[in-house]
């Protein structure tokens, strides 16, 4: 039996629609896989990626032992718009930035008046930050800790 042009054309047309759906099935599959991974990640995420724990403070400042959760890029300062707000007149409105880049924590002074101290010494440029390091801003000292 000879396969006519019209039959072949219809074959290609139907193949097109079937292939569209085969693609979509795989796309849905990929979506489903990441969603089930998402559930596991979500619980870890609620705890934040890390936190600054207050180790030294004063009367008007944050309470000692308080955990201030960090984002990937967190601004630290006196202004209420910061991610980590420190109520201390020795702190600048935007004092420092703590960031997480390629698996490493970094501390950077954002042009503050009184400077930022890392383990007791004033930082000049961008400094690497390790878990357990102590950061001092104004009269407040904070320690970088892993998420609980």
């Amino acid at each position: 039996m000879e396969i006519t042009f019209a039959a072949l054309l219809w074959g290609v047309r139907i193949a097109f629609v079937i292939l569209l759906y085969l693609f979509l099935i795989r796309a849905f599959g990929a979506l489903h896989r990441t969603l089930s991974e998402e559930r596991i990640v979500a619980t870890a995420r609620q705890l934040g990626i890390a936190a600054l724990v207050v180790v030294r403070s004063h009367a008007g400042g944050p309470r000692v032992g308080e955990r201030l959760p960090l984002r990937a890029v967190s601004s630290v300062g006196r202004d209420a718009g910061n991610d980590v707000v420190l109520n201390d007149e020795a702190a600048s409105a935007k004092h420092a930035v703590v960031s997480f880049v390629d698996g490493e924590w970094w501390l950077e002074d954002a042009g503050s008046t009184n400077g930022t101290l890392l383990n007791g010494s004033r930082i000049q440029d961008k400094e690497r930050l390790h878990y357990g390091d102590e950061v001092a801003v104004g009269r407040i000292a904070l320690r970088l800790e892993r998420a609980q």
Partner: protein
Amino acid sequence: MIRARPVARLAELRLLVWVAAFSVAGYVAVVAAASGRFAWYEVAVPLAVLAIFGALHLFLVSVGFQGDQLLMPLALGLTSIGFILVERLAPTLLLQQLSWLVIAAGAFCGTILIPRDLSVLARFKYTWAFLGMLLLVSPLLPVIGREINGARIWVGLPGIAQFEPWELVKVALVIFFAAYLDEYREVLSTPPRRFGPIPVPPIPYLLPIVAMWLVAMLVMVFEKDLGATLLFFGIFLAMLYLATGEPFYVLIGLVMLAGGGFIAYHAFNHVAARIDVWLAPFDSDLRFDQAYQLTQGLFSLANAGILGAGLGNGMPERIPVVWSDFVFAAFTEEVGFVGALALLAFYLVFVYRGMLIALRAPTTLLQLVAAGLSFIIAFQTLVIVAGNSKLIPLTGITLPFVAYGGSSLVTNFVLCALLLRVSDITARVRR
């Protein structure tokens, strides 16, 4: 920061193979139906398109990109469907669209290479807003501004190229709104003063609401573009809601839009015409006049049925300007309900994925950017598909990635690249 260490993107590659398969099948069907025979050289055009897709994939692999692997195959799949439809509906425009794809691919790569955490976008937010406004009013300027099909939304030099600046404004707007709303985060975290059940919006919110409304109305009156007005205001209300979680602001916005629309309906002919056509397209005065495009589109949809007329076998060319405004009706006529459902599923997965990227993003700014960009795709699809099927008045919004048009292709590729960048930042932070 992007490090130049190649990574395998196998999930993306596997999906792209399926994109390649249906692209070739669809294109061959369209060409064979038109010419009445199969010829091997017909696969040259889809292969050229697929070569560009492959190059984009290799580019992401070579820069060690860690972002989402599902978004690009979806976007490129839709683009490929777009090329099949250009070949079907306006073969003379194919070469032009192919050159636009090259430009779009370049813009995509450029966006991927934006340094670091995209904070550069937030830092220059007023620059973006200013550029956006400049682009928005540019069609009103003499010499470069041009009016096409009753809408003054184009700039270009006659005979060389023309561009719809509005398309790019959308992306600039989302970035500006995201940065603006992110900056006023502290106002956002305090609950608004309430006047009974009505929250009184703080000034930083009230001011842009009024400003945006004025600009949106300006676009409607002077550029005569209903679609842009709708999208412009829609983006703003959606992002305001995303940032505040306060449905009342959206309500105020909708009431203002409805009020403006009511006045415009009575004051301006081009607005009234759109509404009249939508209400009664088969009216004897309108059927073969202003409503001709819409009624022909409705006949196309009616001709579709479950399985459609078959690619290349329908009569979508009877719709005026079918390749830009009515691609959805044309596609549906030829592949039927089954095909239209698949097309909408592409958008569904794309938007769902975009919103997931937004949920996972590490900073408020990135969350707002990703959500706003996903919203653009969802809103445009909704407005044009509903317009084609006479659910709402027809507006000149393009079907993302699919409709013919250089400006929208470039913009959508930039949009997709930005979403991918957000997911890349998320992946690096979480590792």
